[in-house]
């Protein structure tokens, strides 16, 4: 009786793990800290060898990685397929743009807007979450998609507030108060994004290995059994939506500050699909995987500008191909090994501390 509704998302993480080559998860599993440290150092030094356009792209990758980490909470951990994720990104961006631009003559400092925008995005996440609580997986996908479109349409048409398709411009650059330093070059924003990214990953990682994260995964695996273990399904679903949304809202604020002007066209369904795709390509549930996914999906097409025209074409075909040609068997064993490894590490930390 459970097989049908259970079949919706339960084995998603497991199955997406099979997509990643085995050695990646093995290496990541064994030398997790070293890998992360190396990646971070690389990310820190990278812009020094890049021109300003490339740094801009790197920042873009970072923003998408951040959103990926947030969506991963919703889709990867909690198993709720959200196709309207861009809405929260838009909410964050427009919150900052409205509070810190000539539009209403408000110039609230960037650092104050962040918590406000994050809270508004989280609230929007809950508001989206409430009606879809009892929906099955694919209905959920369509309704969230509809939600994303509604937000975009409203932004596009609510001219007195958002100025419609013309968008909002002359958005304030963030400045650091005491030393009166204003962030205005791609490099500045790159480092801001890097900090936000690391923070997001840290939070997501901590959540994953906690009572909250376990409740999410349990819910993804089997809702009824999770409820029988005392997991409040409503609370944890809404929590997943809220936390996922707040990451996107945070990213949106940075995006608005960085771009200086934003338009409804920045927030199309394709952004949601891109974020979802990078979460899947990276191996759902894996945070370094999200970074790799962001580099592949956002970075590569920008580098290969010549194929720009074919970019989306290839992207679409890639999505289909990825779903079909997943190597079976031996990689799922690799996942199991890395899982055991992860637990051992944790276990030894616990017993020694």
């Amino acid at each position, binding site marked *: *009786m459970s097989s*049908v509704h259970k*079949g*919706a*998302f*339960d*084995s*998603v993480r497991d*199955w997406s793990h099979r997509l990643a080559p085995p050695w990646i998860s093995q290496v990541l599993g064994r030398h997790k800290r070293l890998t992360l440290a190396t990646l971070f150092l690389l990310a820190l030094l990278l812009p020094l060898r890049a021109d300003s356009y490339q740094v801009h792209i790197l920042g873009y990758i970072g923003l998408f990685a951040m959103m990926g980490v947030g969506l991963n909470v919703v889709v990867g951990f909690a198993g709720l*397929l959200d196709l309207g994720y861009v809405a929260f990104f838009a909410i964050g961006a427009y919150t900052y743009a409205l509070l810190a631009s000539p539009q209403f003559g408000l110039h609230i400092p960037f650092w104050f807007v962040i918590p406000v925008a994050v809270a508004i995005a989280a609230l929007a996440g809950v508001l989206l979450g409430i*009606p*879809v609580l*009892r*929906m099955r*997986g*694919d*209905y959920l*996908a*369509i*309704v969230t*998609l*509809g*939600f994303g*479109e*509604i937000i975009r*349409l*409203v932004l*596009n*048409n609510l001219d007195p507030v958002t100025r419609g398709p013309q968008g909002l411009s002359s958005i304030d650059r963030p400045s650091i108060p005491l030393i009166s330093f204003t962030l205005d070059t791609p490099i500045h924003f790159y480092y801001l994004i890097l900090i936000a990214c690391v923070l997001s990953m840290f939070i997501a990682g901590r959540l994953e290995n906690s009572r909250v994260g376990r409740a999410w995964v349990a819910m993804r695996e089997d809702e009824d059994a999770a409820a029988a273990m005392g997991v409040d399904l409503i609370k944890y679903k809404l929590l997943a939506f809220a936390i996922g949304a707040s990451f996107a809202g945070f990213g949106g604020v940075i995006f608005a500050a960085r771009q200086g002007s934003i338009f409804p066209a920045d927030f199309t*369904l*394709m952004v949601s*699909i891109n974020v*979802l*795709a990078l979460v*899947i390509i990276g191996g759902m549930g894996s945070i370094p995987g999200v970074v790799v996914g962001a580099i592949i999906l956002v970075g590569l097409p920008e580098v290969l500008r010549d194929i720009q*025209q*074919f970019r*989306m*074409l290839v*992207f*679409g*075909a*890639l*999505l*289909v*191909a*990825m*779903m*079909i040609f997943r190597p079976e068997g031996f990689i799922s064993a690799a996942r199991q090994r890395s899982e055991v490894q992860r637990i051992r590490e944790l276990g030894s930390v616990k017993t020694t501390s």
Partner: protein
Amino acid sequence: MRQTTRSSTSPIKVTLERTLRGMQLDLWAQQAINGLTLGSIYALVALGYTMVYGVLQMINFAHGEVFMVGSYAGFFTLTALFAAGFGQSNLILTLIIVFLVAMVVGGILAVGLERVAYRPLRRAPRLAPLISAIGASIFLQNAVLVIFGPRLQVYPYVFPAGGVSLGNVSITYIRVFIIFLSLAFMLGLHVFVRRTSIGKAMRAVAEDKDTAALMGIDVDRTIATTFLVGGALAGAAGVMVGMYYTQINHMIGFVPGLKAFTAAVLGGIGNVPGAMVGGLFLGLIEAFSAQAIPAVYKDVVAFGLLVLVLIIRPTGILGEVIGKK
């Protein structure tokens, strides 16, 4: 107060009011016709969603693109026939050819999609075919973009201007044509699903694939047939939209696709008559809401309705027929 107003009303004012009220009524009637036209197109596309959902319990996300490609196929056929001078002299034959081509292209494309993007994933977790469908949708959109470019293609005018008069309401020929042709297709489909052995096989597969296979039904072929029929209807709908709005591009599949899906959900997904009712209903709601709220929000109305229905009555107006397990 009220009485004085009434007593002081001049005969001229009364006539004026009546005319205004008449116009108002005509306006509503006009919107009803618009709604029915749009609604029948939604219904045709919705049928594809609902039938596929019935047999596979998956949302064929790329169905809107089948509709779009069908519209292109119709456009090229129609343009070619007119360019050859054939269209002007043999209107009826031209229409038949155009619809046939679009339906064949739509049907074959849908079957191809099933074969390439969905069949290998039939036993995979449910997210897999959905993402595969999103991928296929992006692929088709951009394939059309790359091949034909981003510019709008303009459908040649097929129907003469003017229309049928019903009292004060005039219905253009194209609308009459769309409404009647859609009804004919729906009736045909209904008979097909209810009466033919392939239709019965479809219903059996929708109930239970494994048992159907045990009963000697070729499940793969039945599913392919479902896609064929759904794709053909979407192709026909594509031509109708082309003729109705006269302009098409590679993006026209997305929003109508979503709305048709909404219609399918409204009618209870998996429910064939439900999709028809849902389509007409959505078309009417959209047309009437245009009277009350700015037209730019008509898509918001459709999506809002979708969310609302799923919250209040997740099984649709007529109830979900298949996939109830």
